[in-house]
Structure formats: C-alpha cells, structure tokens
C-alpha cells in the first residue's frame, strides 16, 4: 500500500525526512512512533500528497505522489494532528459539505448516517461544531476522513489532547476500522494504546528509519528474542518443568511463584505444540502468553539512547 525509496524532505536548514526506504503492506495497521521532531508529520504529509518530497519516490495505493497527487488524495483519508472544522456548521452540515467536495454519489444522507454511526456521533449530529467537545471533534474529523471510504487511513496523533475516556472510545473505533480491513498508519506518543490493534511498527528518529517490522519483531528485539510466560493453577510442577525442558525451543526457564518464564525460539505452531504437551502432561495451565515486552520496551530499546 505504501512504498518509499530514498524519500527525503528538506526545509530551509533542516532535513525532516532523510532518504527513507519503507514498505507497508495493504491491510496492516502500522504505528508510526518517534520523538518530537522525528519527521512523523512530514512523512505522513508526503504520503498524503500534501507535501512535495525534495527527492525520492513515494508510491501510495499504486500512485506516485509527485506524478498523481489527486489519485493519492482519493485513496487516502488523512487526519492531521491539528485540524480545523467549520465551526458555524453542524456536524451533519460539515459532512454534507465534504460529501459534495468529494463528489460522492447522491443521496448523501445514507453515507453521512453511516459514518456518524461508525464514529458514534449521531446524537450530536445537529449540534454546531463549536459546541462539540474535543473528543467529539476528533471523532467528527475521523468521520470526515472516512466519508469517501478510503483504502488507507493516515492518522497523525489522533489521541492527542483527549481525556482517558475519549481515548478509549477512539481506540475502540480504530480497532473496528482495523478489523474492517483498512490499512492504517497511526502516529502516537501513547505507545501502550497502539499495542492492541497495531500489527506493525515504524520507528523514526531525526528523519531516519530506526526500525520497521511487525510488533512481534519489535518485541523480540526489545527482549533479545521471544519470551513466553506460563502460569499454572496447581498440579505437578515437575511435570510442567519436564515438558518445558523436553522442548528444544525452550531455554533459560526461570521459576516464578505461579509458573515459569522462559525464552522460546520456535514459531507459533511450536508454541501451540508445547501448550498441548503441557496440558496432556496434566499441567493445569491458566495462561500461556507472550512476555516479550511491549512496543514501549521496543521503542526504548531501539531508539538511540539520547532520545529514548
């Protein structure tokens, strides 16, 4: 869905994005993380064909941003970090305006009701935008972004400035959108909230790519490999230990009060086989899960120390 090669953007005396090679597959949900000034917003704006790259190539949904910016606009739903809405209009009128501007087929009402439902804003649809709360405005912004049903969503700090309740609602909404198959690139500083629905992580630092890969890879890098944690509800501890040590993928098993934590070099299928062997050995497993650390851990581990 997104492919960049040597993508670069310079300003008067700084290089915001430096020779970036990046690939994000269709259907993935990528967290774009990095410290302030890392180039996240510049990168998103270039991908959205709102900012011309100084050099390099950026392909979005099969279109080159420099050659076909309007086709890119049609494929992309971009929510800037700071955006305005037409304050004098109601939420419904605002969406009607953008429905006209996007040249979407009439009648507009059905599509507008759909997106209002999607962002749970139907009750406030006829209120003037100036009277909406920050969370509602953010959801309205998202509704505007979704109006033309874009394949790719670029969300720049969508949770910024929201209270915990509004952040949770937004998180739920993004999870639903992720499940619906949209490709989403979301930049955020609140890394823990990205964990639930992000499949990939892109880390930037001073305009350079530090890491790009799956969340699992990021965790593994952070933890020096994949770690699993087994919690048992009683039963013979020896049987559990025997099953663990019998598996060649298990190493560095350390006992805890309610189970074991260990390094695991196998894939998901081997993990499933190990779980089955534990259960058949009579171990009363109450949880068997990844313990490789969070995106935050990965971020702290992978980012250069002075910025982490």
């Amino acid at each position, binding site marked *: 869905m997104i492919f960049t090669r040597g993508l670069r953007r310079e300003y008067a005396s700084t290089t915001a994005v430096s020779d970036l090679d990046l690939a994000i597959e269709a259907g993935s949900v990528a967290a774009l993380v990095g410290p302030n000034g890392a180039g996240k917003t510049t990168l998103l704006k270039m991908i959205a064909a*709102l900012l011309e790259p100084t050099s390099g190539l950026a392909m979005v949904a099969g279109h080159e941003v420099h050659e076909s*910016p309007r086709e890119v606009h*049609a494929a992309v739903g*971009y929510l800037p970090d700071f955006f305005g809405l*037409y304050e004098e209009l109601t939420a419904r009128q605002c969406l009607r*305006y953008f429905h*006209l501007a996007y040249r979407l087929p009439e009648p507009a009402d059905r599509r507008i009701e759909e997106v209002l439902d999607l962002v749970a804003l139907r009750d406030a649809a006829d209120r003037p935008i100036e009277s909406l709360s920050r969370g509602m405005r953010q959801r309205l912004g998202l509704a505007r972004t979704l109006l033309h049903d874009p394949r790719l969503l670029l969300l720049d700090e969508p949770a910024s400035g929201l209270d915990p309740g509004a952040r949770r609602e937004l998180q739920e909404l993004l999870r639903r959108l992720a499940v619906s198959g949209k490709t989403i690139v979301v930049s955020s500083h609140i890394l823990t909230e990205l964990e639930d629905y992000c499949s990939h992580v892109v880390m930037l630092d001073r305009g350079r790519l530090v890491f790009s890969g799956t969340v699992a890879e990021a965790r593994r890098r952070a933890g020096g490999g994949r770690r699993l944690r087994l919690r048992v509800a009683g039963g013979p501890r020896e049987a559990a230990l025997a099953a663990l040590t019998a598996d060649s993928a298990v190493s560095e098993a350390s006992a805890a009060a309610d189970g074991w934590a260990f390094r695991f070099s196998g894939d998901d299928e081997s993990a499933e086989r190990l779980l089955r062997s534990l259960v058949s050995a009579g171990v009363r497993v109450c949880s068997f899960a990844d313990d490789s650390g969070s995106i935050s851990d990965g971020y702290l581990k992978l980012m250069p120390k002075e910025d982490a």
Partner: protein
Amino acid sequence: MNALARRFPEIYRCLLTECGRSRLTVGVVTSLALGGAFWSAASWDRDPGKMLFYYAFWVQVATFIVYGSTRASAAIADEREAKTWDLQRLTPLTSGDIAAGKLLGSPLYAAFLAALFVPWALAGALRSPEIGAELVFVYLQFAATAFFALSLSLLASAYSDLSRGGSATTAGALIGLGSLYTLAPSLSKGPLDAGFSYFGVSVPYLLWLPLATAGFGAWAFAAAKWRVGRDLLEPARFWRFPAFLLYLIAFVLGFPKSSAYFALLMPAAATLMAALAEPTKPEAWRRWLAAPDRRELAARTPSWVAGAAVCLAAALVITGIPSAQGLEAYRRLPLLLALFLIRDAAFIQCCRFTKSRRPEILAAVYLGLAYLVPSILLSAAGGRRLLYAFVPLIGRDVAAWENVLPGLLWAAASVTALALVSRRVGPRA
C-alpha cells in the same frame, strides 16, 4: 440544493455560514430603512431620480465591491488560519473549482446586500432622464470592477500565509477602495461617447473600459487559481507569468501615442512584485537547480526569474527599435529597467537565504534605501547627474554605453552574490 452549489461546494458552505435567516432579515430591514431615507433625502434635490440612483449605487459599490473584497481576501487566508485548508486540499476539487467557489461564495452576503438596493437604484434611474441612458454602461463597469476587485482580493488571499490572514483582509479593503478608480470614468459624462484608437482600431470607450478591467480581473483570477493549484501539487506551468508580462506589454502598446520604450515599466514592476510576493524558499531554489531534466527545470523556474528573463529579452528587442518622436535618449530605458530589475530581484532572493523571518520586508527596506540614499546624498553633494549609476535613470549627457554600464555591473554583482549565497544554502546533514 441548486446545481451551482453542487458544482462549487463552497457556495453551499457560504450559504449556510454567511446567509443565516437573521442576517438576511437585518439586510432587508436595513435596505428598506436606508432606501426610504434616500428617497426622502433625494426628494429635496433638483433631480431626485439622479440623487436616489447615486445614493443606492454607492451603497451597492460599498457593499459588493469594498465589503465583498474583504470577504474574498479572507477566503483562503481564513482557511489556512483555521487549519481547514489541508482538508480542502485533500478533496478532488480542482484549483479551478476551489478558486471559482471562493470567488462566488465568499461575497454572497455582500451580493445579497447590493441586490437589495437594485430596486432603489432602478427607481431613481427611471425617474431621471440623465441616468437612464447610461445605466447599462454604469452597471457593466460595476460588474467588471467587482470582478477585478474580488479576483485581486482572492489572489492576495491565496498568497497569504498563516501569520498574515489579517493583512490579507486589509489588502482586500484597500483593493476594494482602490478599484473604485476604474469606476470613476463610468460616472463622468465626458469621454463616454467618444471612441479612441486602440491598436489602430477605433473602439468605443464605454466598451473598452469594462473589457480592459475584466481582462485584468481574469488575469488576477487565473493567478489565484494557479496559486491554489500549487497547494494542490498540480503541475506547474512556467509560461504563465511570462504570458501575463507579454499581455502587459501588448496592453500598453495598444494605446495611441504610446512608446515602446515605456512598455517595460509595468512588466518590470510586476516582476518585482512577484519577487517580493512569491516565496522562493531555499528548499525550492535548491530543488529548481537540481531538477533532473529540462521539463522539470522549466516547471520549477521561480516566477521572478522567468519574468526577469522576459523583461531582458523584451528590452533587447525594444532597444533595437529605431527611435521616433525625438525619444532617442529613451531608447536605452528598457535595458536599464531590465538590468536594475535583475539587480533588485536577485537581491531579494539573496534575502530569502538569510535567517530573517520576514525576508521580503528586509529586502523592501534595503531596496528603499538603495534608491533613496544615493538620491539624497548625490542631491546634497550636487552630483545628481551621477544618479544614473545607482538607479534606472537616463543620463542625458552621457553616452548610451556609459549609461547602461552601471546597471550591467550591478546586475552582474547581484547575480554573482546570489550564486555564491545559494551554494552555501543547504540543510544540515
């Protein structure tokens, strides 16, 4: 919703925001009260119809042209300030859709107010035999002036940045007031019936004036559209500004008794304005110089560079035209203008490579000093005849080459300085 609002969604939005019920009611009540007052006041005059017409007409001018211009000048500046501009840029609306939508939508309420006074103006015109015959021409010129003023205001708005939304609105008011000068001839009776020779063809003045005004309005609208197109990353066309300069040259040459030697005055001024208004930032400058092919190089050419090239080429051609009407000394004027234009525009570009937050102001101040200081010092020292060495003036007592040489040296020095400075401009690694 009508077809026009579907075609230009901006009209739909402006109808909702600008033309609420209370505003319309206030407009209607005001027009009734004011119209009644005008009627009453005019009835004391010897020609009450004429007075009523002029009262109503000037209210229409004040609302549609002056107030409308302030609305048009805020159309894009306000969007940038309110951070809604990026959202518009993402829609499939073309630069033409956006520019036309804003031109039609932003002065909607002003147009409504002006329309409310049409009955009063007509009532006055019908009562006055003097006004009746001129009504069509007066409103033709009114429409042309409104188009010119609104387009120019939209252009000012398109060039405004985040921090200058307020100054764009001020510019709109000034444009609205300034454009009234084009209305004045339509209200003075003298030359209206007369025709005059334009490019050797006799043209009725009452037809030429609105056409000329609308012509400049069309260029201003096109320039606003192109500026919007740049924000939409639409392909740049380097020939647009040179085409406008050639239009200016042709426009001047059309007048009877006009001399080709003065034809570069307006294009040179326009190029200097482009150098001040068009922010060719270091990044854009570097990208232009590093263009991978000729097409890209041409497309990315800064407007002032293209303008200066056109002026220089035109100057060389005009200088070759044999003198007439005893203007031999003026033959060198186009070349002087072109050379000093290059000096000044290159200097303005150098200023853009400084750390100044307002390089164009810095440049304007320095240029002001560059023209004023030599004038003051040389006047005080009694050396005014040497002024041609510092400003584009014709030195009557000096040979042509001697007159042109300082301009050539200034231009060469300025371009060399620009080349040196632009080499040093680069982003941190």
